């Protein structure tokens, strides 16, 4: 296990898992939430809201 974690294979496997999560998140429509938040001035972020 330790050997696997210190090898690059672990990084590649986890990166692929990350890609799969991105795909699932997109499928669920999470990007729309990100867009809604990012395309409006976030009053909390700038210290007003």
């Amino acid at each position, binding site marked *: 296990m330790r050997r696997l974690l210190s090898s690059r294979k672990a990084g590649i496997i986890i*990166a692929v898992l990350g890609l799969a999560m991105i795909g699932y998140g997109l499928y669920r429509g999470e990007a729309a939430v990100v867009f809604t938040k990012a395309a409006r001035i976030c009053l909390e972020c700038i210290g007003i809201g």
Partner: protein
Amino acid sequence: MDKKRDREWRRHRIQALWALLYNSYIMGFVHGKIYKGPLKNLCVPGLNCYSCPGALGACPIGSLQAVIGSWNFKFAFYVAGFLIFTGALVGRFVCGWLCPFGLIQDLLHKIPFPKKLKTFKGDKLLRKLKYVILAVFVILLPLFAVDVLGQGAPYFCKLICPAGTLEGGIPLVLLNKSMRSAIGWLYAWKNILLLATIFISIIIYRPFCKYICPLGAVYSVFNPISVFRYKVDEEKCTGCGACARACKMQVDPVRNTNHTECIRCGKCKSICPEGAITSGFWNRKDSSRQEKSR
């Protein structure tokens, strides 16, 4: 020495290029408004406020809180997946090369000051604070401290993030009259935090990255396993300690080559007199001494 300085400024130029790339919506600065185009669906790898008038993409930490705090999603597969993917590929290389707020701290630390602090009592313990901030302000509070509609606020952005104040708050308040009339105690508090961050950055190298940044906390977890990594050639290394002395994040690359605090700035590589430290995606012979210190 000049060659080493050149390499450092080359990194700063690349950081500046990324900062420009993240914030290249010039019209936002002209009109005091933010970009609302489709690129805002995408996260950028570094900490860059999406309410900066020039921002083209979304801040991953802000986005994470937005999705977790939304009424319909309680887990952010899209943003978490992006962070996992980026972290597994390059780890904290993002902190060293691709983060605009990292660049600002790098430049602030170049300002001369009578007594610069490399480390202090409690430094090591304080480095754990960023994980607490990640857990409490980025995940738990947006998830559980919700309003009647089940929506949580982005508590890290609201109460802590100095990048939001610098990149979003100050320009928008300066450029937008309606914003000016709305400022209150929270704006004052965030400006105090920003001023403190600026002042401490002059004395301590990257205090925000070391102690506060939840994005750095996420990427740090991936440092030991990321595809891009550092390697110390045991045959070349003489154990002179030059790399550990040069590291501004107080990492000893020989003892723990891909330490969670390493931001992959490359200073150890350029200072090594034997050329024993290399980095890349595909080192053929992987002899990095990652866990020696554990």
